């Protein structure tokens, strides 16, 4: 995101001086929850980059797809798009003020008893609607803030050992976004792999033992030139969207104009796009409702399996992802049955990063998938 134009900096001195001095943060922990960041650039106003937008939308429709890795050129709106995502997300129910965003049944299952020692029932709890959380994991995050740790303040002032939940808790049932994911410290990657595999965060350190649910859609972005992603982490991402510099002059002029209009008056610009945003949100919601009813014939399933086999993809994660993604894609299009047409559209997204790396292969992974897909479909026609 470019900085908003603030030509004259009248207020600079006062603010900066206040910031320069170490200040004590006031109030209890709840008051420290992040305030909502300024108006994000509208998701629907982003020009092009359909692959990335579609991947994100499919993950909203079915979070089990397993997230998106967005890799591509610098300055192509990767992080802008992910940060814009929050505005089109639906809402979920959780137990009021629960730091782990648990549903009532999850809450009862974990806590069992209330403060008074009596068994909890659904009637004891207040429910609230929140928007699906999007949690930003910055590169400089420390492991204790990611996983949660002992509350240092309480330990020091009153000698009480209390658990302070981290970003993984906040991201439960939501999205966890890591910009420059390929530059993430190795030990944080280890933590993420662990949690992503089990859906659970276990903290056993400094004398406390806590486990809490941590299921999230992992979204990562980065520029491949700056570093490679560890293969295990790569494999964790359901979809892999590629993003390239737009080379169409008109589109680029359009991007510039939209950006400038937004920078000049973010609020007015967001308002201008409100209708489009609502429309997309409604379409996603409809798809989510439709999803359980979507069917897929055995023939399509066989073709998917054959495709994965011919591409030499190890394990079954590829097949599973492609199947789920195709379902979500059909739902997004309002279709009740998954066809190979749907599969064709999303096969690249789901499989691109799962192909075995052959040093002598000159073919681009996307082309290879298309070629094998054509073979699978072609055989079908012949038969």
């Amino acid at each position, binding site marked *: 995101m*470019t900085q908003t134009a603030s030509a004259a900096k009248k207020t600079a001195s006062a603010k900066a001086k206040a910031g320069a001095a170490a200040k004590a943060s006031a109030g209890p922990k709840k008051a420290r929850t992040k305030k909502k*960041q300024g108006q994000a650039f509208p998701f629907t106003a982003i020009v092009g980059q359909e692959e990335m937008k579609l991947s994100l939308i499919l993950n909203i429709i079915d979070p089990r797809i397993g997230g998106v890795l967005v890799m591509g050129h610098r300055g192509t709106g990767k992080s802008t798009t992910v940060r814009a995502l929050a505005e089109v997300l639906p809402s979920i129910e959780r137990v009021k003020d629960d730091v782990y965003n648990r549903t009532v049944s999850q809450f009862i299952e974990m806590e069992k008893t209330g403060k008074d020692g009596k068994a909890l029932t659904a009637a004891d709890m207040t429910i609230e609607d929140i928007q699906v959380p999007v949690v930003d994991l910055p590169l400089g995050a420390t492991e204790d803030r990611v996983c949660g740790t002992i509350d240092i303040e309480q330990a020091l002032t009153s000698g009480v050992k209390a658990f302070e939940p981290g970003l993984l808790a906040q991201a439960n049932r939501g999205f966890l976004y890591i910009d*420059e994911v390929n530059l993430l410290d190795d*030990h944080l990657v280890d933590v993420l792999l662990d949690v992503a595999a089990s859906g659970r965060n276990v903290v056993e350190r400094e004398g406390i033992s806590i486990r809490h649910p941590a299921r999230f859609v992992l979204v990562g972005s980065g520029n491949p*030139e700056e570093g490679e992603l560890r293969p295990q982490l790569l494999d964790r991402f359901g979809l892999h969207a590629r993003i390239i510099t*737009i080379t169409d002059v008109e589109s680029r002029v359009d991007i510039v104009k939209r950006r400038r209009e937004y920078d000049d008056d973010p609020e007015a610009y967001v308002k201008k796009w409100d209708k489009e945003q609502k429309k997309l949100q409604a379409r996603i919601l409809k798809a989510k409702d439709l999803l359980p009813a979507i069917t897929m014939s055995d023939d399509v399933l066989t073709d998917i399996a054959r495709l994965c086999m011919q591409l030499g993809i190890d394990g079954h994660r590829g097949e599973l992802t492609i199947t789920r993604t195709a379902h979500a894609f059909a739902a997004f299009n309002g279709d009740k049955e998954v066809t190979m047409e749907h599969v064709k559209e999303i096969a690249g997204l789901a499989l691109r990063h799962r192909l075995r790396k052959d040093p002598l292969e*000159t073919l681009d992974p996307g082309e290879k998938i298309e070629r094998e897909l054509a073979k699978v479909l072609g055989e079908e026609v012949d038969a």
Partner: protein
Amino acid sequence: MDLAKQALMLLAVDPSLGGVVIPAAVGAGKSTLARAFADILPEGTPFVELPLNVTEDRLIGGVDLEATLVRGERVVQHGVLSKAHEGVLYVDSLSLLDSSAVSHVMDAMSRGEVLVEREGLSEVHPSKFMLVGTYDPSDGEVRMGLLDRVGLIVPFTTQNDYRARRQILQRNMAVKDAEGHEDTRDELNMVKGLLDAARELLPQVAMTKEQMQGIVQSALSLGVEGNRVDIFAIRAALASAALNQRTDVDEDDLKLALKLVLVPRATRMPEREEEVQDEMPPEDEMPPEEPETEDEEAPADTPDADAEEEQEETPDMIEELMMDAVETELPDNIMNISLASKKKSKSGSRGEALNNRRGRFVRSQEGEMRSGKVALIPTLISAAPWQESRKRERAKKGHKLNTALIINKEDVKIKKFRDKSGTLFIFIVDASGSMALNRMRQAKGAVSHLLQNAYVHRDQVALISFRGKQAQLLLPPSQSVDRAKRELDVLPTGGGTPLASAMYLAWETAKQARTKGTSQFMFVFITDGRGNIGLQSGMNPEAPKATKEEIEQEITGLAASVSADGIASIVVDTQMNYLSRGEAPKLAEKLGGRYFYLPNAKAEQIAEAAMS
């Protein structure tokens, strides 16, 4: 014509240009230059210098532990990035800034704020700043990701002597001298007045659609990556117009934008007309009349006929005009001043075996609170025995006892971490018949030196030799330098040169090591580069003999993969001069690595190159 000065003036007019990066030689008074910039900014604008050895907690901010312990409540310490908010963040030797610090600066620039998720702290600090960075190109280049967020990059040209530039700058920007002479102060005030006027005018400056298209087309022709740059180029042109008290953008503004924004990021020389037009929509789509865009208010007082003429120009003409200017006014080949076309910057600093910052938490030990992460439990444990006596002491002094625990500085234990980030050196030694005996001895000498160095730096080494049909992993990655030496001493020679097989094996070895946490690799090839055995021959004895072309292709493909994988390489050429057909230099080129000619190079020199 001084581009550095112009760049800084544009930034002062429009801080959303993000910053200015200036390449400059050693001792050219870079900080004087940056401070001169501070002088022309409005009173009270923060100017924060980022030291190269900045720690993560100082950069981002975190808990001020000393104050927290004293006060018994959480005290937040703002980081450098937050202190630079609405001001200038100045970095000297930008290319030497360590890569994690660069990432944090990049992140703050793209968000306009710093997310502090550390030590139980979760805060957002605003952090919109102008980055002014200087660096000496001989120290290596600045990471492209960072440059992408900085609008203005001053081209580094040898003609443009920095010392002269500084004088101009000092005069023009009116650096205050100790005496505070009247006229310098007047000059300073004049510049400030000019900038104030420009800032005021800026919102009214408009650009035609054709000009905008011209900029975008130029970016395309130069192969500039990403779309963010278009916006910077347009802003730069607008700021330039404002600085000249115009509300419309003219030729000079566009040229300046091109020079400071687009050209430094060029990845190719512009190809004229033909190619560009393919990517263009047909020209008649553009309405020749009323070119002013609908959402941009036409300036009320369009001054002269010049502007009207301009509006009739097509984007193509504008582009050509801009390109002509670049070619005549900037020296030599554009590619020589483009940072994007240069080698990537040096990889991060060498990993340490045990450190205070990252990796796996190994143990805690006494230390300064600032020098690492506090190990809480050991700290509490060490404080525990003294509680009674400390409380008594405090009571005696009449202090109130409002904390349950009294922790003194000397109780603090910090964590020690083990980091596996050392470099893995894979030596790939040609043992084929073409390696004459004395060459082999020299090669062994060079490897010995490298091994010695690797030992000092606690790096890992692996050894691969290749002769006959296939390469062989003589020593898997280990820290045993002695073993590597022993293997090398008894290395037999003779047979074919299965270079491709060796490259493949080395790459596989590197990939395996990567899964175990090693992140930096260096391949050291000691060979004449004349591979004559195909990959298949080693794996399958029945395979047909590969042709020369096929072998060549294999080597090229593997080299590209290795280099794309971010693995650095060195090729030490063992070929006799009069026999050489230049295979080894070609191999180095394909690998994107460095090349040494063994008979000339001393073992120490090669070792030094590999380690730098």
